[in-house]
């Protein structure tokens, strides 16, 4: 006899999106079970861990200083031939702090908050298959510590990441075309000297379709990583990152930790909802395609998913039309910016090294009001006709 569990809402995957969804669902009065295939939430890290201040407001939880590895006051962009654009408080009127998180602590705390609110968390529990029962219930077959477990839920929130398995089992195609994924490797490193900046290096020989990043985590350690678009090159991400380690910038750098992962840089899924199912975070492709940043969007989409799922339980209505409100909510919140960033990313990928150098040179002549992507794009668009045409609709 395999173990049987029942609940109102099953959350699969307890990254920041899943944990937030689970927390809001249980606060909305639903009985919530969450499963994660890992034994410990927060590891392994598959992320550069950078966020902006606004993420903490979205969480509606008092931020804990333990979540933050280091404050990073400015951004440094480096063009292919080495033009350095420092977006610091001399150039940006209202510069805001960026943060590099300690996701091992952050993710685990978000999961803990969900558990404190009443979520029943099952670790080392892996989604295997799913089916829709005749009575409308969603049945999930999972493996837990070497045993079969069956979970019946009124609805499912799929927060199982870039390689979502839950979506496809319930009829939502999630696979990503090669040109819309960033293939990433990251080394945590120490000893190379750090400024108070998030550094980003561009160029087709540096990181085709993406960039190399240095995100400081402490006085002397940083996440040094790369994302590339695999359809643009025959080499892999590790090849390019290892090449970057040969540059003078990385002199003296030594390894502390290795990570790898994939980041969707597509538009969001057309439908992030279906009968009795919602998708959040990377599984829904709600990621900023320009930077690859997905923590904030995962949290915000998770919040709306949790709320709507709990309302669906109260209304006893799990139909697609009812759940569509979830997508309307996240679209109202950040849909427009994701579309802008998607177009910007398309242009960025198409830019030659010379065009990138030109863009850097013209950015050096600009002053900025704030340090957000829209502001920066506006400034760059003024110097690049191709960009201006693409963004016309968005940059008013």
């Amino acid at each position, binding site marked *: 006899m395999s173990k049987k569990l029942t609940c109102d809402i099953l959350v699969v995957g307890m990254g920041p999106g899943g944990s937030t969804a689970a927390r809001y669902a249980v606060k909305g009065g639903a009985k919530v079970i969450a499963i994660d295939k890992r034994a410990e939430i927060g590891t392994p890290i598959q992320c550069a861990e950078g966020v902006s201040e606004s993420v903490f407001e979205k969480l509606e939880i008092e931020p804990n200083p333990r979540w933050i590895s280091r404050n990073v006051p400015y951004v440094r962009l480096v063009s292919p031939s080495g033009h350095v654009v420092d977006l610091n408080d001399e150039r940006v009127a209202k510069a805001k702090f960026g943060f590099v998180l300690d996701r091992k602590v952050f993710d685990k705390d978000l999961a803990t908050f969900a558990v404190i609110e009443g979520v029943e968390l099952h670790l080392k529990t892996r989604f295997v298959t799913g089916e829709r029962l005749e009575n409308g219930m969603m049945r999930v077959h999972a493996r837990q510590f070497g045993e079969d477990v069956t979970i019946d839920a009124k609805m499912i929130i799929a927060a199982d990441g870039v390689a979502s398995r839950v979506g496809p089992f319930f009829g939502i195609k999630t696979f990503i075309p090669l040109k819309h994924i960033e*293939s990433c*490797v990251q080394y945590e490193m120490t000893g190379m000297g750090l400024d108070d900046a998030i550094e980003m290096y561009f160029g087709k020989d540096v990181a085709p379709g993406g960039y190399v990043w240095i995100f400081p985590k402490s006085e002397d350690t940083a996440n040094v990583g790369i994302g590339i678009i695999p359809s643009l090159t025959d080499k892999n991400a590790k090849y390019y990152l290892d090449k970057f380690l040969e540059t003078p910038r990385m002199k003296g750098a030594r390894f502390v930790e290795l990570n790898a992962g994939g980041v969707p840089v597509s538009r969001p899924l057309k439908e992030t909802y279906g009968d009795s199912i919602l998708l959040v975070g990377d599984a829904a492709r709600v990621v900023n395609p320009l930077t690859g940043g997905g923590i904030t969007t995962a949290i915000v989409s998770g919040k709306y998913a949790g709320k709507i799922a709990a309302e669906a339980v109260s209304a006893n209505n799990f139909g697609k039309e009812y759940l569509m409100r979830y997508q309307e909510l996240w679209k109202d919140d950040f849909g427009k910016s994701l579309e802008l960033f998607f177009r910007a990313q398309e242009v960025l990928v198409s830019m030659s090294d010379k065009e990138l150098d030109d863009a850097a040179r013209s950015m050096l002549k600009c002053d900025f009001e704030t340090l957000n992507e829209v502001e920066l794009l506006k400034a760059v668009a003024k110097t690049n006709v191709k960009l201006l045409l693409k963004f016309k609709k968005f940059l008013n």
Partner: protein
Amino acid sequence: MNVNKELCMLCQTCAAVCPTQNIEVTEADIIISECNDCGICARACPLGALYE
């Protein structure tokens, strides 16, 4: 498709791009079933761990 498990870090990038969604990455292993040898996963792998 074959996996060099000494290179694989179970990061799931291959599973995200597999058009038939036949790659499953568990907490401890990578399982490829019904492979058409299209080679897309090998190109996406950040570590060069997949080969024909």
